[in-house]
């Protein structure tokens, strides 16, 4: 009999989704209760993952579900960021009047899908996890149905994502046709370099995955969806699904397609270069902060992909470090956005920040730290994240990738610094409301402190990641 200790967290989340639904239906006005129960469910499942920590690689369900160091680490990151997203966005959801019982439940469903994706070791399991994740995200994007932009975002995301899922499935079917199996290990064994069909399957799958992490040229949906969705959902979009998608890309590249490295390396390098350049240039003209973050996240995905392109263990590890630090920075930035509230209205334009430092010195300081870190200025965490990526890129003597990365990081520093200039040197406008939400304050403080003090003890994160060996 298989040892179900290791998948207890998934089982627990799926059972609690149903229980929470029942609670929400039969108890009146239980939005508050369901929301906090959802947070507690996530905390408990985090505990369950820690409880079943193991050094070995364990397979479930005829080798279609794998628990190893990579999946455990990524699951922990996913759940922790999910918890902080829920804590930080509590007040926003309440004051935007989209506080329904389904909100927390849909987030749980989406996280369940991500956990399945992260552990997937089989094409079918991977696809089911992906669909579970994105179906919940479509609904969340359109959650504020009184707002026409939110509905537009949901519809756009749904149509484009369905198209990309179709392309991805087509790639999966090609791979299945040519290798005769859906299991990742067996695909790696059966795949033949001489068959062109395998390469086509690989390309179609990579297109679908690049869409999910919004890498150029499959990024078109990201700015509109980020801007249209409620800010709390944008926060979720911006950080949590990227972890799962990145894990899946790592798995695909380094398990079933590891023999095709010459083919996919070119594709990944192109995606990475295009995302870095486009993310740096397109964000310059943006006036809306959420759009700007969308473009900046496209650029950051480019850096994360650069680490994967090199094909070494250290490259993968540095990509994982990059995505962790990216999560923390974006969490902080969105917490700052949640504080920009005046008379029950949230502001998200760049001009609204004008002279923020005069009225709100602490929030402005967090903004300053986080934006400097996003721009990659030492000694903040964002600098180290980029530094590690460049080290592993240069070790494999891919100088062109490193040079373009450096240049686009300099270009992108322009728009981050422009925001800082607007905050610190422009005319002050009216004061924003005082923040009373403890959860939001704690999240903002934590992320700022981690980013600020990362350089004192960087090996805390590095030691965790060095256990992850894929190749």
């Amino acid at each position, binding site marked *: 009999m298989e040892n179900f200790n290791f998948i207890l967290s998934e089982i627990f989340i799926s059972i609690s989704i149903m229980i929470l639904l029942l609670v929400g239906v039969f108890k009146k006005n239980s939005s508050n209760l369901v929301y906090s129960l959802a947070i507690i469910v996530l905390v408990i499942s985090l505990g369950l993952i820690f409880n079943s920590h193991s050094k070995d690689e364990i397979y479930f369900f005829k080798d279609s*579900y794998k628990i190893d160091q990579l999946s455990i680490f990524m699951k922990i990151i996913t759940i922790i960021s999910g918890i902080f997203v829920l804590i930080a966005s509590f007040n926003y959801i309440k004051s935007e009047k989209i506080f329904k019982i389904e909100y927390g*439940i849909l987030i749980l469903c989406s996280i369940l899908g991500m956990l399945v994706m992260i552990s997937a070791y089989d094409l*079918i399991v991977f696809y089911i996890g992906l669909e579970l994740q994105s179906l919940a995200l479509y609904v969340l994007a359109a959650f504020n149905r009184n707002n026409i932009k939110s509905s537009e975002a949901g519809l756009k995301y749904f149509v484009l994502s369905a198209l990309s899922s179709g392309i991805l499935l087509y790639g999966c079917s090609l791979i299945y046709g040519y290798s005769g199996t859906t299991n990742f290990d067996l695909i790696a064994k059966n795949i033949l370099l001489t068959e*062109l069909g395998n390469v*086509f399957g690989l390309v179609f799958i990579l297109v679908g995955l690049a869409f999910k992490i919004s890498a150029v040229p499959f990024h078109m949906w990201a700015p509109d969806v980020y801007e249209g969705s409620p800010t709390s959902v944008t926060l979720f979009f911006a950080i949590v699904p990227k972890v799962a998608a990145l894990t899946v890309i790592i798995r695909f590249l380094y398990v079933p397609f590891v023999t095709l490295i010459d083919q996919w390396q070119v594709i990944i390098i192109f995606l990475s270069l295009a995302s870095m350049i486009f993310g740096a240039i397109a964000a310059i003209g943006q006036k809306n902060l959420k759009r700007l973050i969308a473009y900046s996240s496209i650029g950051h995905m480019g850096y994360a992909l650069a680490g994967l392109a090199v094909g070494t263990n250290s490259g993968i590890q540095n990509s994982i470090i990059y995505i962790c630090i990216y999560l923390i920075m974006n969490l902080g930035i969105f917490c700052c956005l949640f504080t920009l509230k005046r008379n029950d209205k949230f502001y998200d334009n760049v001009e609204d920040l004008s002279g923020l430092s005069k009225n709100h010195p602490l929030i402005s300081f967090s903004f300053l730290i986080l934006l400097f870190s996003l721009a990659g200025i030492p000694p903040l965490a964002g600098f180290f994240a980029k530094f590690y990526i460049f080290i592993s890129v240069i070790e494999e003597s891919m100088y062109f990738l490193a040079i373009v990365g450096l240049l686009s990081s300099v270009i992108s520093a322009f728009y981050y610094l422009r925001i800082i200039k607007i905050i610190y040197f422009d005319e002050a406008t009216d004061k924003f409301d005082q923040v009373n939400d403890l959860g939001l304050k704690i999240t903002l403080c934590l992320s700022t402190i981690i980013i600020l003090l990362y350089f004192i003890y960087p090996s805390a994160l590095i030691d965790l990641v060095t256990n992850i060996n894929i190749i």
Partner: protein
Amino acid sequence: MIAHSLFFYFFSFIAIISAIMVTASKNTVHSVFFLILDFISISCLFIMIGAEFLGMIMLIVYVGAVAVLFLFVVMMLNVAQQNSELIQKNNKYTHLPIGLIVSLIIFFELIIVIGGWKFKPDIISSNYISINSNITNTHSIGNVLYTDYIHLFQLSGIILLVAMIGAIVLTFKKRSGIKRQSYIEQISREKSTGVSLIDVESNKGVNIDD
């Protein structure tokens, strides 16, 4: 064998033609009918390769439920009329060139793939797929669906649950100002709460606004 291949080409020809017609026909109702035709011919193909369970499921689920549901939706929304008006108004097809280019590129790519394939039937080693011919299709699907693939079965259930939640979240509106029936209240009504007896004294008349 000739009869077999005749049937095969007959059904696959109809399947391809009707798939094209689904996208090509201007009337939405016709599209749905072609979709049904497509499903039926594909289920015939399934039956021909001996997968009778899949063929029947295809008929029941896709034709019986999904397509008919589509038909109802299309008829209720009156999309057919709106669409044809829209097409008549701007008859320019500005999107056609780009669409053609993209689909042509994908088409040529696929031609190249098939050219590289060189019709080698032995490319797929079928060691991983063991088919036991002693038991029926239904039996063998059931054998793996609830054992090896139980996690996929359960997760698909959760996907359907999410779809249901999503549909309710996005469309359900609590309307105010309408009277709702409460069955519990109605059934538990008793004589003491429903009827009040008033003793009207005779010869007193009625006092209004005293």
